[in-house]
C-alpha cells in the first residue's frame, strides 16, 4: 500500500524550537513508515496557505499546521478538510474546522514567568516587556504577564518594545530600554529567541536586571546555569511532545476515534534549581 503521507507547515524554521519539533516529527514518522513533507512559511501567512495547497496536491493524509497566523490560515484548513485530510494544529491554534489543537498554555506561561519575575525583584520596581511578532500565542503570553504584574501594586511596567523574537534586534532594543530606564529591575521576554539578545544587553550593562522568558531553549538553559546569571527563569514548552501527540491524535482521528478539540500542554517552570538536565 501507499505509505502514509504527513505534511507539516511551519511558521518558521530558523528557530531551534521548531527545528526540534521537525526532528521529532521525522523520527516519529520514520518509526511508523510514513512519508513527511515540510514547508517553511517565513512568517508569511499567504505563503503558508500556498504551501498547504501544494501539499494537498501531493495527496497528504495528515496535515500538521503550525500557523503563523490563526485566522489567516483558515482557508487552508478548509481546503484540507474538503480534501479529506486530518488537520491538527500545533503550537498555535488555527481557526476553522481543525480536528484538534495541541499547544502550550501560553497565557499560563506569561503568568508564570512574570509572577516569578515580580517575586525575584522583591515585588517592587520597574519592569519592561520585550515583545515579539503579534500572533496569538505571543499576545497571550503578554496578556498573562500583564495580569500577573497587576497583582504587584509596587511594580511598574515602564516600557514595552518589540525585539522581533530575534537576537540582534532584541539586543539593541534592550540596550535602549536600559538606557531609558536607569532603574529597570526586570525584563520579561516573550520567547527565548529574544531572551538571549536581552541577556547580552543586560550582561554588558553590568546592572542587576532580572530576566524571565518562555520556551526553555537549550541556550537559555545553559545561560541560566552560569553563576550569577541574570536569566532566572523560563517557562518551558515541549515542542517534541507537542508534535508527537499531534501525530498520535491525527492517527487516532484517521482510524475513526473521537478526539478532543484541544489538548493543552502544561508549561514547566524552569529556574536554576531544576535547569540542569532539562532539555526538549
Amino acid at each position, binding site marked *: 500500500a501507499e505509505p502514509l503521507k504527513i505534511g507539516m507547515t511551519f511558521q518558521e*524554521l530558523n528557530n531551534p524550537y521548531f527545528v526540534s519539533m521537525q526532528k521529532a516529527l521525522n523520527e516519529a514518522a520514520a518509526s511508523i513508515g510514513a512519508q513527511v*513533507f*515540510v*514547508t*517553511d512559511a*517565513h*512568517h*508569511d*501567512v*499567504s*505563503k503558508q*496557505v*500556498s*504551501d498547504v*495547497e*501544494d*501539499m494537498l*496536491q*501531493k*495527496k497528504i493524509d495528515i496535515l500538521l499546521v503550525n500557523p503563523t*497566523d*490563526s*485566522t*489567516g*490560515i*483558515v*482557508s487552508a484548513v478548509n481546503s484540507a478538510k474538503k480534501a479529506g485530510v486530518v488537520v491538527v494544529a500545533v503550537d498555535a491554534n488555527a*481557526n476553522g474546522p481543525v480536528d484538534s489543537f495541541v499547544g502550550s498554555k501560553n497565557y499560563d506561561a506569561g503568568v508564570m514567568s512574570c509572577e516569578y519575575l515580580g517575586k525575584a525583584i522583591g515585588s517592587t520596581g520597574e519592569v519592561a516587556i520585550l515583545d515579539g*511578532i*503579534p*500572533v496569538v500565542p505571543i*499576545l497571550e503570553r503578554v496578556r498573562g504577564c500583564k495580569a500577573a504584574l497587576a497583582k504587584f501594586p509596587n511594580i511598574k511596567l515602564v516600557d514595552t518594545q518589540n525585539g522581533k523574537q530575534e537576537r540582534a534586534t532584541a539586543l539593541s532594543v534592550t540596550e535602549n530600554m536600559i538606557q531609558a530606564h536607569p532603574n529597570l529591575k526586570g525584563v520579561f521576554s516573550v520567547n527565548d529567541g529574544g531572551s538571549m539578545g536581552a541577556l547580552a544587553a543586560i550582561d554588558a550593562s553590568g546592572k542587576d536586571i532580572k530576566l524571565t522568558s518562555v520556551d526553555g531553549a537549550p541556550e537559555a538553559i545553559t545561560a541560566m546555569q552560569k553563576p550569577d546569571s541574570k536569566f532566572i527563569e523560563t517557562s518551558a514548552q515541549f515542542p517534541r511532545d507537542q508534535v508527537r501527540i499531534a501525530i498520535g491524535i491525527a492517527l487516532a482521528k484517521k482510524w475513526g476515534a473521537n478526539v478532543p478539540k484541544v489538548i493543552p500542554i502544561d508549561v514547566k517552570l524552569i529556574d536554576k534549581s531544576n535547569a540542569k538536565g532539562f532539555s526538549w
Partner: protein
Amino acid sequence: MSKLTMEPKTATVDSASPGAPVRLTWAGLKRSTIFYPFVGLVVVCLVMVFASNSFLSAANIENIARQVSINAIIAVGMTCVILTGGVDLSVGSVMALSGTLAAGLMVSGMNAVAALVVGIAVGLGFGVANGIFVAFAGMPPIIVTLATMGIARGLALIYTGGYPIDGLPDWVAFFGNGKVLGVQMPVVIMLVVYLLAWVLLERMPFGRYVYAIGGNEDATRLSGVRVARVKLIVYGLAGLTSALAAIVLTARLMSGQPNAGVGFELDAIAAVVMGGTSISGGRGSIVGTLIGALLLGVLNNGLNMVGVNPYVQNVIKGGIILLAIYISRDRRRK
C-alpha cells in the same frame, strides 16, 4: 559644400513598408524582451513535469494560477513604476494597510462595498503620496517608498493593534475562491488587471509616456509630456494594484492581516525583472511580467511538489533566478 558628397541613390526611403505591421522574424522575436523569459518558463515547467508527477495536473495548474495572482497583480503596478525608472518598496505594506482597513471597516459594520472602496482608496492614496514625493518633490523613489513602507506598516499595526481582523461577511470569500465561468476569481481579477494594463501601456498615449520617461526623462519633458503627472499616476497605479491584491489576499485569508506582505516588494520586482523589463526603465512589457510572476510561482510550487527541503529551496531558487537572468541578459552591452 565642404563635406563629402554622396550619391543620391544611397539616401532613398525604404519605400517598402510605410504603415505595414512589424514582421515576425526569428531575429525580431529574439530581440523582444519576452523571448528569454518565455523560454525560461517553458524549461522550468518541463523540468518540474519530469521531477514530480503531480505537477502537471489540472488541479495543480489551477493552484499555481491562484497562488501567483497576488504577486502578479502587485507586479502590474511595479512594472509601470520600473518602466519609468523608479521602484516602489511600499507595495507590501500598503497591501497590508488596505486589507486590514477594508476588513476592519466591514467588521465594524460599515457597508461592505463602502469598506472595500475605502480600502482601495487608501492604497491609491498612498501610491499618489509616493508619486507626489517622487514626481513633484524630486526625491529618489527607493528612499521615498522605503519610508512609506514603514509608515503604512505602522498604521496597519496601530489600526489593528497587531491582531488580525476576522469575522468578515461570507460573500467576501467569493473573491478568494469563487468561480466565474469556471475560472477562479483571483485569476479572473488578475487577468482583467493585465488586460487593462496591456491596453494602457501598449495602446494608449499614457503608456508611451511611461516608456519614454524611463528612456530619457529630460527629453520626454521637452516633448511636452507632463512628466510629473505621469509619474504621479504611475505610483498611484502601484498603490491601486496593491490594494486590489489586498482584496484578493483578504478574501483568501478571510481576514485582514497587519503582518501580510512583508518582502512582497522583492517578489514583485523579481517578477518584473525576470519578465524582461529593464530595471533602469524604458524597456520591457506587461506580458513579460506575467511570465516572470508565473516563473516564480512555478518555482515555488514545483519545489514544494518535488518535496525539496525548505532551506535548500532558497538556494535552488536563487540559482535558477541567476540562470534565467544570465540567459536573458542584454547581450548588446557596450
